[in-house]
C-alpha cells in the first residue's frame, strides 16, 4: 500500500488526547467539533451533508472509499465537513459509477483528512467525554495543535447555518401540483428530490427569509430543513416559523424541528455526543411501531416546557429523547431524524407522504 507516501498526521482533541495517523486528502490543519457516525455505507452523502459544517467526522466503520466517489450521490454542492478521520482509506475503488477516489475528492476540495487512526478509540473517548473540539494536523506537533485548538472558538458558539444556506432563492424544479417552499438551513438534495417526486414544485429560500418572503410564493406547504449547529443561532428562522405556523402546513426536519419547537416556546439542549448514524430506533408513540432512522444531530428538543399545543409523536427507543412532534390544532409535523435518509434506511419516506396529505387537506 502507499502508506510510505503519506505524511504523519495527528488528531488532537480538546482534552489533550492525541491519535496518530497519516495524512490524506489535503495536507494542513483543520479544526471542528469531533463527532462519530456509525453508518457503514454512504460516506459521500455524509461528507456533503451541510449539517456537518464545522465538524470533523469520524466514521466508525473502518474501511472508507471502497466504492469510490460518483457523480450522483452528493447531498449539496460541496464537501461540508471540516475534516475526515478514518481507519483505512481505500485507494482502488471498485464500483460501476466511481469516477474518482475518496482521497482525490477530499484533496480537490482541500479537506485535511487523516487515515490509519484508531477510530474506535476516538469514538470511545467522545462517547465517554462528549463531543468536543479537535483538530487534524499534518504540519504541527500535537502540542502546537493543542495550543492552537485552545484558542479556537467552540462549535456551539458559531452560527454555521449562515455559511451553508443558499444566498439567493432558487427553484429546484419548475412544475408540480403543490407549491412547496423549503427554508434552507442546510438542506439536503434528497429532501428536495422526495418533495419533487411527490408532485411538488419546490422553491428553496435562504434561512434568513421572513414569513412574508415565504408567503409571497403562495406556498401550499413549507419545509424547514436540517442544518448545522445550535438552534439558538437561528433567531430569524424561528421568527419566520412563528409567523408561518397555522397559516400553512409545515414540515420540520432535524434543525427545522428544533427551530419550530423553539418558535412554539419549547427549549433545546445539547446532547452529550449526539445521534449520528443509520440505525437509530424511533418509536411512534401512538402505534408502538419502531422505525429504523437515519440521524445526524447534536441538539434536541427538551421535554420540559413543551407547550401543550404540541404532541410528542415519536421518541428515540434508546434514550427516550423527543424525535417527532405534531401540533394539536394546525397542520404541523416535525421530526428530529432524517426521513430523506441518504445515507440511511428508506423506511421513513412515508413522513413526506403524511406531509403531502396535510398539504392536500389544507388546500381543499
Amino acid at each position, binding site marked *: 500500500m502507499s502508506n510510505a507516501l503519506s505524511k504523519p498526521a495527528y488528531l488532537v482533541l480538546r482534552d489533550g488526547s492525541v491519535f496518530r495517523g497519516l495524512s490524506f486528502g489535503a495536507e494542513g490543519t483543520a479544526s471542528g467539533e469531533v463527532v*462519530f457516525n456509525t453508518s*457503514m455505507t454512504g460516506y459521500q452523502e455524509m461528507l456533503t451533508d451541510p449539517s456537518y459544517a464545522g465538524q470533523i467526522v469520524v466514521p466508525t*466503520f473502518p*474501511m472508507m472509499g471502497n466504492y469510490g466517489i460518483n457523480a450522483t450521490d452528493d447531498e449539496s454542492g460541496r464537501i461540508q465537513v471540516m475534516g475526515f478521520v478514518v481507519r*483505512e482509506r481505500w485507494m482502488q475503488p471498485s464500483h460501476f459509477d466511481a469516477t474518482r477516489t475518496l482521497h482525490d475528492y477530499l484533496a480537490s476540495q482541500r479537506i485535511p483528512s487523516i487515515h490509519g487512526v484508531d477510530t474506535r478509540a476516538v469514538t*470511545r473517548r467522545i462517547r465517554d467525554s462528549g463531543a468536543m473540539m479537535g483538530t487534524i494536523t499534518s504540519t504541527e506537533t500535537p502540542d502546537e495543535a493543542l495550543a492552537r485548538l485552545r484558542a479556537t472558538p467552540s462549535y456551539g458558539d458559531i452560527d454555521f447555518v449562515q455559511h451553508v444556506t443558499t444566498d439567493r432563492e432558487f427553484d429546484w424544479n419548475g412544475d408540480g401540483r403543490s407549491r412547496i417552499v423549503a427554508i434552507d438551513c442546510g438542506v439536503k438534495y434528497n429532501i428536495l428530490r422526495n418533495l419533487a417526486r411527490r408532485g411538488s414544485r419546490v422553491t428553496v429560500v435562504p434561512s434568513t427569509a421572513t414569513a412574508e418572503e415565504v408567503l409571497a410564493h403562495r406556498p401550499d406547504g413549507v419545509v424547514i430543513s436540517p442544518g448545522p449547529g445550535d438552534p439558538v443561532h437561528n433567531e430569524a428562522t424561528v421568527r419566520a416559523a412563528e409567523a408561518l405556523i397555522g397559516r400553512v402546513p409545515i414540515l420540520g426536519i432535524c434543525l427545522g424541528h428544533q427551530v419550530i419547537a423553539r418558535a412554539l416556546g419549547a427549549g433545546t439542549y445539547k446532547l452529550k455526543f449526539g445521534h449520528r448514524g443509520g440505525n437509530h430506533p424511533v418509536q411512534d408513540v401512538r402505534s408502538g*411501531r419502531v422505525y*429504523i432512522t437515519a440521524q445526524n444531530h447534536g441538539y434536541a428538543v427538551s421535554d420540559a416546557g413543551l407547550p401543550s399545543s404540541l404532541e410528542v409523536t415519536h421518541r428515540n427507543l434508546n434514550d427516550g429523547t423527543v424525535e417527532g412532534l405534531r401540533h394539536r390544532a394546525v397542520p404541523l409535523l416535525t421530526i428530529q431524524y432524517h426521513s430523506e435518509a441518504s445515507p440511511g434506511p428508506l423506511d421513513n419516506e412515508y413522513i413526506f407522504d403524511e406531509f403531502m396529505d396535510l398539504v392536500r387537506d389544507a388546500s381543499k
Partner: protein
Amino acid sequence: MTTHEKPRKVLVIGSGPIVIGQAAEFDYAGTQACRSLREEGITTVLVNSNPATIMTDEDVADFVYIEPLTVDVVERIIAREKPDGLLPTLGGQTGLNLAMDLHRAGVLERHGVRLLGTSPETIAKAEDRELFRDMLSAIGEPTPPSEIVHSVDEALAVGRALGLPLVVRPAYTLGGTGGGFAKTMAELEEVARTGLAASPIHQILVERSLLGWKEIEVEVMRDAADNCIIICTMENFDPMGVHTGDSIVIAPTQTLSDKEYQMLRSASIKIIRSLGIQGGCNVQFALSPHPIVGEALPGGAPAPMQYYVIEVNPRVSRSSALASKATGYPIARVAAKIAVGRTLDEIPNAVTKKTKAAFEPAIDYCVIKIPRWPFDKFATGDRVIGTQMKATGEVMAIDRSYVAALQKAVRSLEMGGRSILWQDPEWKQGAARGVEGLPLNPTDLRLWVMLAALRRGVGVNDLCKITMVDPWFVQGLQHIVDMERRLLGQELTSDLLWEAKRLGFSDEVIGTLADRLPEQVRQQRIEAGIRPVYKMVDTCAAEFEAVTPYFYSCYEQENEASPLPAPRAVVIGSGPIRIGQGIEFDYCSVHAAWALRDSGVHSIMVNSNPETVSTDFDSSDRLYFEPLDEEAVRDIIDNETPPGGDAPASVVQFGGQTAINLSQALGRAGLPIMGSSADAIDIASNRERFGDLMERLGIPQPPGATVTSLEEGLSVAQRIGFPLLVRPSYVLGGRAMEIVDNATQLVRYLSRAVEAGQGRPILMDKYFEGREVEVDAICDGEQVLIPGIMEHIERAGVHSGDSMAVYPAPTLTEEEQHMIVDYTTRIGLALGVRGLMNIQYVIMSESLYRDPSTFDPSSHLKSSVYIIEVNPRSSRTVPFISKVTDVPMVQLATNVMRGQTLREQGRQGGLQPVKPLVAVKAPVFSMQKLPGVDTYLGPEMKSTGEVMGIDKALRPAVAKALMAANLMLPPKGSLLVTIADRDKPEAVPWLKLLHERGYRLYATSGTAALVSGLGIPVTPVNRVGEPAANALSVVVDRTVDGVVNTIAEVAVSLKDGFEIRRAAVERRMPCYTSIDTARAAVEALAYGYDRFSVAPTAKYVDGTA
C-alpha cells in the same frame, strides 16, 4: 389458543446429526432458543437425535428427548408432553421439514399444537419454488427467469427456451444437494436427473444462470407488530455460482454504495413482510457485477443496480449464526422470543443491557468467513465447488480491515502447512508465468491459486475476468502480495513490521519472508512494543457502553481488554468442524468454561468457529474470537497476564487435537497448562515413549515398528505377520492409513509412501481383527473413574468415529471388563493424567461375534486385551457417555485439573455402576455431497456426525440409532448383497432372517451361489460393466432398496464396489460395507419399527422410562 396468546409449553426440534450443510450452528440456535423461552416462563421440550450437543444437556430444556427425528417419534413425544406450541425454525432444514411433515400428517392439528413464529403457509411460500415466485412477483420483486419442472424432458424443453447457461435447484433439500450448473444440454439432462432424485417432492427449478453476479445475503428480523430490522448484510467473495456455504464471505457488504445497500435492505423487508415471518429470515440476492466482471460474462455486462431474489430461508440458518457472531446480536434468542409474541422494542439488547433489540447492529470491523472443506481427508474427492455445498465447517475472523481479517481466517483454518504463502508444487510446472497451469476455477484452493497468480504478475483486472471475483476483493489480495515483496526485499524495521502486522501477517509468514524464525519475529516485535490490542464486539460500534466480554485482536492504539482478575484459566477451543473433530469438542469446551465459572474461576474461551455455543458471548466470562495457533494463543495469554503477575493456565484437554497440539508450544514457552502436563501428553502421543511405558506396565500392544525404507518394512512384516495397519507419521494429502493383507500390497504402499515421505518414518502395526472397546476416564492422580465401557459393533479396522458404539458393553465377559478397568487405571496413574483420557482396546477371543441375546458375561472365554491407543484428552464419546451414565465428565475433570480430587468431589474411582438402559451411538455420513469419495469404511474416519439411540434394551436401541442415522432398512423391499468369501459364513444367519421378513435378494455370482445354497430364492445379477441387470444397474434404477457390499482385500477390490457404493449413497439408500453393521441392521429390521420406547433421556437414565 389464539395467535397472540403466549404458549405454555413449547416443543423445540433440533437439527439432528452434523452433516454437510447443517453443522453446529443449530446447537447454538437451539440452546439459545430454549434458554430464551425459559426466561419467558415457558416450559420447554427438546428433541434431537444428536447427543454431542449442548442443547441435549439435561438442564437446557425442561424435558430433553434424544430420539430419532421422525414423524412417528415426535408424535409420541407430543402425545406424552402435550405442548401447545412448536418452534420449527431453529432446527435447520431438518427441523423445518419435520415440522411440515407433522403438519401435513395432521399431527399438529390432532394434538392442538400451534407452529410458532412461522405458519405452515409461510414455510410453504418460502420453500416451494412456485409459490415463492408467485409471491415475489405479486410484490414486484424480481426473480431470475425460470420454470418449475417435474421431469427431465420438461427440464430440457425449458432449457431450450431460457438459453444456456442454466442452474438446477431441487426443492426442499439442504446444502443445495443435487443441484448444479449446466453449460450444455447434456449437462442439463444429467443435473436435472440428480436434482429430481434429490428432491423429496421430485421438483426442480430450471433457471437462468447468474454466474458471476455479486451474491449478497441479508439477515432480517420481524416481529408480530410488523417491526422489521436488518441484523447484518454479507457479501460473498466468490460470486454467484458457488454455494454460499462454500463461499468466502465478508460482513458487512464492502462493494455496495448506500443506494445499492438500501435498495436490497428495503427489498428484504418487503419480502419478510409479505411472507409474514415472525422471527428471523435470510434473503439471498444476486446483484449485477462490476463492469470488469460483467464484460467477461457470456451475455455481456448486465445493467448496473439490477438484482434478483435468489432464495429465502424462513428460519435461523448457517448465515444467521454467522451474522450473530459477526455482529454480537443474538438472533436465535431474539427469534425465539418473537415467536412467543414479544416485540423487538420490548426485548432488551443483551449486549448493552441499556438499549433494546429493535435496532440495526453497527459494526466497526470486518468479518471474514472461510469454509473448512474435507479434502485433506478425501484426497480423491472432487475439489470443485459449485451449487452443492461440500464444506463441513467454517472459521470466522474479525479484524479492523479486510486484508487482516482474511489472513487471520486463513490461520484459523488449521490447515497444517498451508499458510497464506502455500503453493501446490504442481502449479510450478510449465511456464510459471501468467495464469498457465493455475487452476483458477472454483475449488477449495482458489484463494491460494489467486495469490499465486498475483505473485506471478497477473494483473488484478485480468484475474477478475477469469475468476469473476470483484476487483475490490482481488485488490486486497494484491496488497498482501505487495507486502510479501517488501518483506522479502526490505530490511525488517519496526515500521515495516508494524505495517505487516496491521495487514494481518503472522509472525510465521513474516519469518518465512524475512528469513527469521517465528520466535525471532515475535521477540523483535515485542521489543519494539508491537503487540495486538483487543477490541470489543458490541453491536453498536462503541456508541453505547457494552457489557459483552467478546473480543478480537488487532494492531491499534487502544486496548479494551485488561486482564481478568485471578483466579482465571484459558480454555482452548477446537476450531472449525471437520471430519475427526466435530461438535463434541465444542460441547466439552463449553462445559469446561461452565465448570470453571461454577467454581469461581474466570473462564477465558478462545475459538475461531462461529457456529458454536462456545463462541456465544455468555458461554464464558470472556471470549477471544481468534485463530487457535501458537501466536494468537500466546498473545492472548500475554494480554491476560498483569504486569509482574502470573500468566493464566491453559486448559488444553477439551479442544480436540487442536488444543492438544498447542500444549507442546505452550510448554516450550514456559506457560502453565492445567491438568496433565505437556510431558504426559507427549508420552501418550510419542510412539517410543508410550511403547516403553506399556512394556514397563506389562500391558500388551499389537506388535509394531517404525520404518523408513522398503527393506526395513518387509523385514518387519516378516517378523510380525500380516495383516498390517500402515500409516505415515506425517500428514500427506489423504494417503494415510491403510490395512495391507500381503507383501504385494505392502510393497506398493511403502514404495509410494517412502518416496513421498522423503525419509520420514512410516508406522507399521499388526492389525488385529478383533472386537473393539473404548473407554473414557478421569484420573486425579489417586483414582481413575470410568463412567462406562463402550463396545463397538464393527470389528477393529473401522475407525472408532465411524463405528457404532454400545453402552453398556453387551458382550464382554466379567474378566474382560475387569482387565479393561485394570489397564485403564494403571495407565492413567502411570502417565500422570490429571483430567480426561480416552483409551481404545482390541479384544482377540474365540469369535469375532458374540450373540448378545444368548451371551453370558460370567462365562470363562479365553481372550486377550490389547491397547491400541491412548488420547490424553477428551474424546468424541465424552458427551455421549456423560449423558447416558449421568457422570458429568467434563465438570469432574475440570475440577480435577484445578486440584480437587475425585474423592473431594464425592466420587469413587473404578467402573461406575451400570445404568438400566442401552445406548447406541451411530455415525452419520455426508457422502452424497462429496462426489468421488469412497464410502467404504476403513481405518480413516469419514463420518461427519453422530446420533444416539437409547432404550431399555439392545435391539430397540440399535433400531433407533439406525433410524436416526438413516441407515435403517425399509420394512419391506429388496437388497443387493455382494459379500467377500471370508464374510460368507457370518452372513448366513441374517440372510435367512431377511428371507423370513419377505426381502427379495439380488446378488453377484459368488454370493448368489451361497444364498441359493441356503435354499433362499435370489436373483443373480452380472458384475459391474457387464450387461444389465448388473450390480450397478439394480442400484441405479432402484430395483433394490439397500446394499451390503463387503470386500476381502481392501486395496484390490475397492475399485469394483466403488461405483455401486456411490450409486447407493447418491440415491440415499443404506449401504453397509461392514458385515457387522449389516448384521445389526437386519436384526433391527427383524425386531421391527414400532417396538421401541420414547421417553426423556433422564427417564432412561433413572430407570423410569
